[in-house]
């Protein structure tokens, strides 16, 4: 018999700033973000979310307005980072500044400013160890599906979609610098995206690895 009391739900009545922090921080860490180092400010944002939770029934973003369109409104339930991954990586913080990119040492510098820098954006995509040597790893960056491959210490990023019939290259068979599409065997060079079929190369993206973390550079999203 299991007579332990049911654990309290985190968003039940009486939710505290600490509850929200404990719920959100472990998730955003997987996306390469952390709580703003300006703790007082971060807690002010979370306090606003609690007021919104009481008023509107969920932790909607304090800096954006619910339009009443459910499809839009689900994208502003905190943390909304996955919906705006490219944009927030470019800004190096989430819209409200509750979360900042892991590599930002001092969140105070960028408080308030909501502007996207120009040019391509480097996005944290995975840990090197997450990429099996024999298989690729599929990651999503914004709307892009990207296949990461690793041979030894080298990591490569290419579009995940085979140009034949959109087979997932990340699930293909890797031999040396070649991946074979799992569906019908088209081959691609993982360094260049070149294939033997005419006019069917896939796009590649620059990759950097720092401290075991893989960063992929993607063009700025055109909205």
């Amino acid at each position, binding site marked *: 018999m299991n007579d332990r009391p049911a654990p309290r739900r985190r968003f039940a009545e009486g939710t505290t700033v600490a509850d929200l922090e404990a719920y959100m921080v472990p998730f955003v860490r997987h996306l390469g973000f952390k709580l703003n180092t300006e703790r007082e*400010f971060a807690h*002010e*944002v979370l306090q*606003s979310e609690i*007021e*919104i939770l009481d008023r509107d029934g969920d932790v909607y973003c*304090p*800096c*954006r*307005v619910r*339009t*009443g369109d459910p499809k839009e409104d689900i994208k502003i339930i905190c943390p909304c980072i996955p919906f705006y991954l490219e944009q927030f990586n470019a800004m190096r913080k989430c*819209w*409200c*500044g509750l979360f900042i990119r892991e590599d930002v040492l001092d969140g105070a510098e960028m*408080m*308030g*400013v*909501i*502007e996207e820098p120009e040019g391509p954006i480097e996005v944290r995509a995975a840990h090197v160890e997450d990429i099996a040597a024999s298989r690729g790893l599929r990651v999503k960056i914004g709307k892009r599906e990207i296949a990461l491959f690793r041979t030894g210490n080298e990591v490569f990023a290419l579009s995940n979609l085979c140009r034949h019939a959109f087979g997932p290259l990340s699930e293909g068979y890797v031999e040396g610098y070649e991946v074979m599409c799992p569906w019908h065997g088209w081959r691609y060079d993982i360094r260049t995206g070149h294939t033997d079929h005419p006019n069917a190369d896939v796009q590649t993206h620059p990759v950097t690895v720092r401290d075991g973390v893989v960063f992929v550079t993607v063009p700025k999203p055109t909205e």
Partner: protein
Amino acid sequence: MDVKLYALSTCPYCRMTKRFLEEAGVEYELTEVDLLEGADKQAAIDEVKSISGGTSFPVLVAGDEVIVGFNKQRIKDVLGT
């Protein structure tokens, strides 16, 4: 110059912007969009969308300039404070 601020009552950057404008002695017209209801709220949301292209706050309109977020330097430049 006419200064208008679209804000949310819940948004930290909006509070910072209000504080900043008040301290600088700037007169401005304030719309707290989340406190409006029904048709007024919808109208205000549509206005913000047409001005800024989004629904993120704060949106400060000063003459022809539109500033989204609490960008202190830009606000200073535009208002000459």
